[in-house]
């Protein structure tokens, strides 16, 4: 859906900030992939390579007060939200300095200080909980907003429906952000979804819904700005369906045989990272040197985080008795 010319437009600072978040996502993803491939990390890994624009643009508008609920394919959402990388790495390595002391792992990463409230492995479940966080914001009289990330496949599960209806009804300050990467595990969007655009479902919940090119930072910027303004103003939720693609398939190791010949190659032609980089240079928003320096800083941050994470200690079995309840369980 293309926007009128009075749609919010990003300035240079915003564009560079979005690009920075994208690079942080991509460099971190690359480091995770190589560490797993070297056999130094064991974990099911759901890369979001190719989808960077979406959380990068969304997070540009968020403060630490604002909260997100995300999914197993959610590390990009946390990294975009400037969650510190050291405890992230310690967590994916299953170590005591991890955000969750190694108990949650990549599928349950949590970091309330930066607003990362829930990471879930159950399709659809980020949405009902995001509503609750948004309800609290509403009751607090706060301006904070909540982002519920979920996949295109998740739009066919019951929790989506119940959450959308309640959010619409209660005018909750929540934005439902769906990176539509055309696949749910190995099942294509068309094989699982009886409508051509998920955004069309918004009408059934009394909220605005848009289908956006999720690889286009400008289009994303305009829609996210509007949705967040709406939410902060107490006008209720918005559904943003952001078209994109997962370059690495569902989970690391996916052979992607289920994809039609050429589909991946074609999607990769639309890789948002090099394209956006070029755009920044072409339009004079940044110089090669600036972007290079930014990338190097990020690489250093990632490298340090990886080192920190891998050096952290393995948790002791006593941890099984802690955090089940506030009070430690007896041995």
């Amino acid at each position, binding site marked *: 859906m293309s926007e009128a010319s009075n749609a919010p437009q990003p300035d240079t600072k915003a564009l560079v900030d979005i690009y920075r978040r994208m690079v942080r996502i991509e460099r971190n993803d690359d480091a995770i992939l190589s560490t797993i491939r070297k056999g130094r990390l064991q974990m099911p890994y759901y890369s979001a390579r190719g989808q960077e624009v979406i959380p990068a643009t969304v997070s540009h508008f968020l403060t630490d007060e604002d909260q997100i609920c995300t999914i197993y394919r959610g590390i990009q959402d946390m990294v975009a939200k400037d969650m510190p990388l050291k405890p992230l790495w310690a967590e994916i390595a299953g170590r005591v300095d991890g955000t*969750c002391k190694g108990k949650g792992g990549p599928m349950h990463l*949590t970091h309330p200080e930066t607003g990362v409230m829930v990471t*879930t492995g159950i399709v659809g479940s980020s949405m009902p909980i*995001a509503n*609750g966080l948004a309800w609290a914001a509403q009751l607090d009289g706060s301006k904070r907003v909540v982002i519920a990330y979920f996949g295109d496949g998740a739009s066919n599960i019951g*929790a989506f429906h119940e959450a959308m209806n309640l959010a619409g009804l*209660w005018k909750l300050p929540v934005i439902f952000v769906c990176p539509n990467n055309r696949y749910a595990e190995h099942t294509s969007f068309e094989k699982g979804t009886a409508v051509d655009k998920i955004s069309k479902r918004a009408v059934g919940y009394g909220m605005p819904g848009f289908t956006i090119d999720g690889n286009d930072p400008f289009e994303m910027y305009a829609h996210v700005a509007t949705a967040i303004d709406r939410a902060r103003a107490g006008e209720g939720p918005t559904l943003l369906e952001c078209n994109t693609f997962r370059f690495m398939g569902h989970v690391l190791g996916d052979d992607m045989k289920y994809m039609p010949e050429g589909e991946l190659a074609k999607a990769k032609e639309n890789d948002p990272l090099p394209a956006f980089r070029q755009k920044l240079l072409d339009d004079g928003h940044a110089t090669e040197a600036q972007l290079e320096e930014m990338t190097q800083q990020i690489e250093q941050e990632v490298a340090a985080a990886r080192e920190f994470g891998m050096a952290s200690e393995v948790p002791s079995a006593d941890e099984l008795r802690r955090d089940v309840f506030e009070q430690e369980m007896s041995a």
Partner: protein
Amino acid sequence: MSTTKMHAIQGVNAALHQAMAEDEKVLVLGEDIADPEGGGITGAAQGLSTKFGDRVRSTPISEQAIVGAAIGAAMAGYKPVAEIMLMNFTTVAMDMIFNHAAKLRFMSGGQTSVPIVIRTLTGAGWQTAGQHADHLEGWFAHAAGIKVVAPSSPADYKGLMLSCIQDPDPCIFIESAGTMFIPSEVDDDQGPIPLGKARIVQEGTDVTLVTWSSQCIRAQMALEGFAEAGVSVELIDLRTISPWDRETVLASAQKTGRVLIAHEAVRDFGPGAEIAATINEELFGKLKAPVRRLGAPKCPVPFAKALEDAYIVQPADMIAAVKGLMS
């Protein structure tokens, strides 16, 4: 000390009023829960929305959304009490309860917590048949990270509800049909009753009878029968099923040497099995008779009154079982 005669649900209502007045973080939500809609199916929330306004919200028929909203609000510092109208409907919200509410503290390494209460009604006796009366406390007791509370007396309804609301972790609070009919006196300043502590309803020396919820009421209806049979029964109301009060139960079992467990849930793979297995393990060789269990047969709750009566463990069944233990 002044007291008021009340029914179980009035105990819940009193607790909710008190908790909402004392702590502005307490919220109440559920289908029909606000006053314009009648304060919930049993009226347990009556008066709350009139007094506390927007902190009390009637919801759509969306149990996943209800529990999800409670979880999220709890993570942000609130203490929501969510009504799932009937326990059988927890099945449509089971992901939210089991995979999220109960696990988020652990999975986050203690960074987040989910202090919610899920109130839910159940129990046979109203001829509501197969989908409205199951006692599923065994499922929740098997789950890590959630407390399971099932009161029998009006005072316990109030005191245990107060504790559930204060508890820093999720609790499921079971309100059962069989406990709804006998009003009793409740102290006007009845405060929280600790979770995980059983109540000895009657002391005795021959047989320990472990019950809770509706079966504690039916056990009380059998007390005369026990006495007539000349058996001194120690009746324990477990009150909290998980974590359960092993100490009280084991001490009583050690004293009497004979144990009967009676619950409304299906007997097979039911919560009574854990208690029986534990007693046997801890008191091996010290019991005078095998631990016996009474529970529902392994079938759905039937509609016809005669079948429903046969389905529920009756006071007479307890009397027969107690006699059996003595012989």
